[in-house]
């Protein structure tokens, strides 16, 4: 296994020169392309681009709530965190609706339509947000020490976002989401959704952003 991977990795490294012809104009995760989505801050509708030029309108899950609009004095990083949180919120709504439309909960249902694509984009948006927040924490001088979590020094501005970040790391991805994706019936899946399997964690980010805005 490790030898095969090492050889393959060598192939990747050797590939570098050839791949430079592809350019480096790639955009950050989630900024455009199929599945890119936005949600209005004053309503419950989200427009999701399924392929270039085609859009569908989906209701955001009722149990999730969006953060308040970002204050005008926020920097670009915080505004981006807000945008990415709203993206996660929208994709959670799409995923919740997709799971609600699943008719066959036999093994492997999360990788079948309609859940598969929705799950993929929800995870892409969530990891994009997590990566962005991790970079922001690092820029603010915070350090992560497991299992204690993030420790902030002088600047405490971003501290409210640490708890939801850690909840995703230690609970959502390793406990709550696997439980949802291994549900064996519509009733079981719905019960988990009703208990906040998706929205509880998104709401944590919304609440944290609202707190940061309120504390100025």
């Amino acid at each position, binding site marked *: *296994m*490790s030898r*095969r*991977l090492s050889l*393959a*990795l060598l*192939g*990747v*490294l*050797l*590939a*570098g020169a*050839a*791949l*430079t012809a*592809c*350019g*480096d*104009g*790639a*955009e950050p*995760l989630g900024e*455009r*392309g*199929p*599945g890119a989505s936005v949600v209005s801050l004053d309503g419950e509708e989200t427009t999701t681009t*399924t*392929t*270039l030029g085609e859009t569908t309108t989906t209701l955001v899950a009722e149990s999730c709530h969006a953060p308040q609009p970002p204050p005008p004095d926020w920097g670009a990083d915080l505004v981006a965190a807000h945008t990415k949180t709203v993206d996660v919120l929208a994709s959670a709504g799409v995923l919740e609706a997709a799971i609600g439309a699943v008719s066959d909960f036999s093994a*492997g249902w*999360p*990788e079948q*339509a*309609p*859940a*598969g*694509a*929705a*799950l*993929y*984009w929800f*995870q*892409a948006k969530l*990891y*994009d947000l*997590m*990566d962005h927040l991790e970079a922001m924490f690092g820029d603010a001088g915070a350090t*992560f020490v*497991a*299992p204690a979590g993030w420790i902030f020094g002088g600047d405490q501005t971003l501290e409210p976002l640490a708890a939801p970040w850690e909840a*995703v*790391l*230690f609970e959502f*991805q*390793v*406990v709550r989401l*696997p*439980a949802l*994706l*291994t549900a064996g019936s519509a009733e079981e899946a719905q019960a988990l959704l009703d208990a906040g399997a998706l929205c509880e964690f998104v709401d944590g980010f919304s609440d944290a952003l609202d707190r940061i805005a309120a504390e100025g």
Partner: protein
Amino acid sequence: MVLHERATAAIESLNELIAAFDQPGWEWPGPLALDLLRSQIDLFALSVLLDHWFDDAGGTLDGAGLWTLPPDAPLAPVLGARNAVIHFEAVVLPAVLSEPTLDAARARFFELDGCAIAEALATGIAGLAGGES
């Protein structure tokens, strides 16, 4: 260059995750959670980049999140790797993470061929660089 960087990052972090599964005595799932997160961030960063390229290449995306490419598309070597992401995310990881102990999780990971994604990525990117289609 971006593809190379993201593919390398994804392969390295998946290798670290696999190595973590191989290391006995770790508390489950605590310390592994960070390895999981890092591997997922790197995997999706690469995957979304591929999505943009597949879209530009005239590919079609179905409701299961799987791409189909025109027969002569130069990105065909990495199609399998990209499409394997959903299986890894929707089936392999939930099953592994639902196991109560590290030993059981490790066994489940290898039973479900969790290494296949890393191998598919590495092979696919190398094939792309070699001009295979």
